[in-house]
C-alpha cells in the first residue's frame, strides 16, 4: 500500500508538471492572438454614435487600463499564475467585469453532461457491439453492422447532426431541435425539468453517438479478434464455460484496459468538440463560448477553458494510470 502511495505521489507530481506546462503554453498561445479585445469593444461602441478620434483614444486608454493590458507580458504571466493558485482566472474581457470562470461554469455543465454521457454511451455501445462482433465473427448481423460503422465513421459530424434535425425536426417533427430544455419549465430537480432536459438531449446525443460509435466498434473488434485467439479463451471454451461468461469475463474484460485508456483521452477531447453540436442544435455549451471568446480576443475566457481542458485531460490520464494496476493485475507500474 505504501508503495502504491509513493507511486501515486510521483505520478501526481508529474500531473502537476504537465498541468503547469500545459497551462503556461495555453497562456502564451492565447496572448498571441492578434485580436485586441479593446479594439473589439471600441468598434462595437463607436458604431453606436459619432465618436471623434479623441473619444476613441480616451476609451481605448480606459479599457486598456481596466483590462490590465498595459503591463508587460511576463508580469501578466506571473499575475496569472498567482491568481490561478486561488482558482481565479480574472475577469472576462468579453463581459467585463464578470469573472471568466462564471461564464465558463454556466456552459460547462451542459458540455460535460452532454459529452460525457454521449461519450460514455458511445464507448459502451461501441465496445459491447465491437466485442460481440470480434467474438462472433460469423454473425451476419454484426458483420452488417461493421460495414455500416465503417461507412458512417468518415461522414462529417456536421452532416450527421443536421440530418438529425431535418429528419426528427422537420420531416417527422417528434423531438425538440433546439435548446437545452423547454422554455416553460424552470431549472430545478423536478421531473418535468429532467424529462425536458432528456428530451432535448436526445438528438444531440444521438448524433454524437452515431458518429463516434464506429471508432470504438472497430477498435474493439480488432482487439477482441486478437484476444479470442489467446489460450485462456480457447481453454475456457473447451471447459464448457458458458458463452456469455466467456464474452464478458474473458474477452471483454481483457480488452477493457486499453479501451479505458482511450476513453480517458476521448473524454479529454470533449472540451473543444461541441461547437458544431451547439450551432446545429442551439445547445448550450462551451464550444460557442470558446469560439466567441477567441473571436473577441477574450484571452481570459480562452484561457479559462484551456485550463479546464488541460486539467481535465491530464487528470483523466492520471486517474487511468492510477487505476491501471488495479484493472490489470499484471501491470508493474514503474
Amino acid at each position, binding site marked *: 500500500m505504501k508503495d502504491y502511495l509513493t507511486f501515486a505521489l510521483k505520478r501526481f507530481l508529474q500531473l502537476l508538471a504537465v498541468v503547469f506546462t500545459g497551462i503556461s503554453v495555453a497562456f502564451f498561445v492565447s496572448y498571441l492572438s492578434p*485580436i485586441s*479585445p479593446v*479594439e*473589439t*469593444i471600441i*468598434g*462595437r*461602441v*463607436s*458604431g*453606436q*454614435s*459619432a*465618436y*471623434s*478620434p*479623441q*473619444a*476613441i483614444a480616451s*476609451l481605448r486608454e*480606459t*479599457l486598456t487600463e481596466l483590462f490590465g493590458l498595459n503591463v508587460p507580458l511576463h508580469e501578466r504571466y506571473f499575475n496569472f499564475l498567482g491568481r490561478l493558485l486561488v482558482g481565479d482566472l480574472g475577469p*472576462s*474581457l*468579453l*463581459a*467585463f*467585469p*464578470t469573472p471568466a470562470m462564471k*461564464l465558463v461554469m*454556466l*456552459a460547462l455543465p*451542459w458540455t460535460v453532461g452532454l459529452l460525457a454521457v454521449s461519450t460514455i454511451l458511445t464507448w459502451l455501445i461501441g465496445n459491447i457491439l465491437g466485442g460481440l462482433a470480434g467474438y462472433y465473427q460469423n454473425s451476419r448481423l454484426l458483420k452488417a453492422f461493421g460495414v455500416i460503422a465503417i461507412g458512417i465513421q468518415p461522414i462529417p459530424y456536421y452532416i450527421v447532426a*443536421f440530418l438529425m*434535425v431535418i429528419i426528427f*425536426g*422537420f420531416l417527422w*417533427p417528434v423531438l425538440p*431541435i*433546439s*435548446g*437545452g430544455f423547454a*422554455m*416553460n*419549465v*424552470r*431549472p*430545478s430537480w*423536478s421531473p*418535468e*425539468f429532467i424529462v425536458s432536459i432528456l428530451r432535448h438531449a436526445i438528438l444531440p446525443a444521438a448524433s454524437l453517438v452515431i458518429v463516434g460509435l464506429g471508432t470504438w466498434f472497430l477498435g474493439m473488434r480488432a482487439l477482441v479478434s486478437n484476444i479470442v485467439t489467446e489460450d485462456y479463451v480457447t481453454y475456457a471454451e473447451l471447459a464448457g464455460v458458458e458463452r456469455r461468461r466467456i464474452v464478458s469475463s474473458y474477452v471483454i474484460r481483457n480488452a477493457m484496459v486499453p479501451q479505458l485508456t482511450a476513453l480517458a483521452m476521448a473524454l479529454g477531447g470533449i472540451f473543444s468538440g461541441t461547437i458544431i453540436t*451547439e*450551432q*446545429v442544435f*442551439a445547445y*448550450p455549451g462551451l464550444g*460557442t*463560448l470558446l469560439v*466567441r471568446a477567441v*473571436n473577441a480576443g477574450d484571452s481570459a475566457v480562452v484561457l479559462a477553458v484551456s485550463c479546464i481542458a488541460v486539467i481535465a485531460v491530464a487528470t483523466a490520464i492520471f486517474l487511468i494510470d492510477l487505476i491501471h494496476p488495479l484493472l490489470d493485475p499484471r501491470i508493474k507500474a514503474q
Partner: protein
Amino acid sequence: QEEEAAAPPLNEFPREETLIINNPEPPAINPDMFNMWVAGNGAAWSNGLHQLVLDTLWFIDPDAGLDGALYNQLAKDVWQYNEDFTEMTVQLREGILWSDGEEFTADDVVFTVETQMETPGMVWSAPFSQYVESVEAVDDYTVHFKLKEPNSRFHSIFSVRWNGAWIMPEHIFSEVEDVTAFDFNPPVGLGPYTLHSYDPNGYWYIWEKREDWDKTALAEWGEPGPKYVIYRSIPSTDSRLIDMVNGDLDMIHDLTPEGMFSLIKQSEISRGWFPGFPYAHPDPTLPMVIFNHQNEKFQDKRVRWALALMLDARAISMASYRGAATLSAIAIPPTGTHPRDYHAPLQDWLIDYELDTGSRTIKPYDPTIGLQVADMVRPQFGEEVPTDEEAIRTAFGYGWWKQDVEAATELLEAAGFTKQGNQWMMPNGEPFAFTLNTFQEGVINRMGTMIAQQWSQQGIQVTAEADPEIYRSTLPLGQYEAATAWSIETWGGDPDLSFFLDSWHSDYVAEPGERQPHRNWQRWKNPKLDEIIEEVRKTEFTDPRNLELGHEFVKLMVEEMPVIPVMSFNVFSAYDTRYWTGFPTAEENPYANIVTNWANSKYILTQLKPTKQQ
C-alpha cells in the same frame, strides 16, 4: 429564485397570446447582464431588451412609420434648438411609469447624461462628454441641454434608428455603488413589457406585457397584441426555417436567399417584406465597393470610374441575391423614403449624365437594369416577380451603370494604364492587382467574389479575401486596398444624411495606420464634400434644404466615384401569419422595418392581432 426552485411553476405560453421572434445574435455571453449602458460587459440587446423594455426620446423609422417616420416617444414634441444650435430643450411626456411603478421624469434624463459623462467606458460617455456642457431638469418634464459647440444634430443621440441613448432609471442606478459592475437584473424599463424569464444560457428571453402598459409611451400607438414575447437565438439559419414551418417561430430575422425562396414555396402563410420576389427587406445601408483612398492605386477618379464601368450589375445581382437585389447607382440606399426623395427625382439627371472617357463622352447610366434583372428571374419565379414598372423599380432598383468595357479601357488608358495581353499595367509599370476584402459569408461575400471575378476577367488581378474582421479592424485601421462593405447608412425614413455624412468630414480622416472613426472607411477627403457637411451642420434637421444638400452630395459622389455604390442591404426577414396578423408589408402598409433586432420593431407589436385560427 430559491423558492422558485422549490415549487417550479409550469408556465404555459398559449400560442395565441405569444409572439416568438428570432434574435439574430448568438446566445448571450453573459445572460444575467442587462446593464446595456456599459461598454463591453457582455449584455445582450437584441434579445428584446432594447426593443421592448427600454425607451428614449425619439424614434426615426427606416420605413414610412405609422404616421410619419418620426415618433415622439418619451419626448412630447420634437427637439427645440436655440438659434445657433448651442442649446436644446426637450418636453417630456407626463404620466409615464417605469415598470416598477416609479414615475419617469426629467431627472432620469439628466441622470442618464451626467452619469455617463462622469463614468468613462460607458457606451455614450464619449459623445456626451464631447458635446454636452451641462444638462438640467428645468422642471419634472423639461430638460435643458447646454452644448459645448453648435450642433444641429445633437438630438440624434436620443433618436433611435436601430438604437440610441436609452434613458436610465435614476431611482435604481443612483442606489448602485459601481454603475459599471451593476447587472440591472431584473431590468426596470419604460417599455410595455417586463422580463418574465430567461434561459440561464442565454438562448431565449421571455417578456411579459405590463399590466400598466398604457402608462408607457408606446400606448399612444395602441395596445401591443401579444401577452408574451419570446426572443430566441437560433444560430443555424436553416433551423429558423424549420422552426417557422413547424409553427415555433413567428418572425425570422434573416435567412439565406435560397432559404427564403424555399420557405415561400413550402408555406402559404409565410412571407417577407415584398409580397413576391425579391421578398427581402432593404435595410437603409448601402453595400458598395470601398476604395482605400490612402492607397495610391485608387487616387485617380478615372481609374475608379473605369472599375465601375467594368462591372455587370445584373451578374452581381444574380450572384449575390439570386436577382433579389435592389440596385442603386447613387450613394443613397434605395430604401424607406429615399426612392421618393432621391432616386426618382435624380433619375433624369442620371440618364443625362455624361462622362468624359478621355477620348469621348458617354452616357453611362442604364435605367433599364432593374427591368432586365426582373426579366432574368421571371423564368424561375414566374408570378412572384412583379410586372408593374413602378413595383419593379422599388424592388429591383431604378437603374445602374451599364457595363462598358470599351469606355473603361479608354479611361484607364487616359490615366496612363496600359494593357499587356490580358493584364492591365499601372503607370508605374507594375501589374494592376489588388485584394478585395469582403464579408466572410452571406450575400456581401457573394457580391465581393463576383466583383473580383469580373475585374479579373477584364485583366485586373483582383482576389477576394473573406475577412471575418472587416468591420473590427480591416476597415477602421485601413488595412485593405479595396473592400465590399458599406460606409453609408441613413435614417431611411428621412432624407437627412447626417446619420453618416457628418463623420465623412475631412477633419476626421485618420493618418494611415491610425484608427478611422466610423464611417468614412474610404478615408476620402474632398473640399466640396466638406462644404456640404458644414452647411448641413448649420441646417435644422427638418429643413427642406437638407434634401437639396443631399442631392448635391449624390452628384458629387457620381462625379468622383470615391466608392462604387451597388445596392441596398436586403435582409431576408420573414414572418408567419399562422398566429398573428398585422405585420408591415412593402405594398400596403410599410409602416415599420420587420428586421427583428431593430428597436423600431416594437411598433409592429401594436398592430398585431391574433389570427384565432385553430
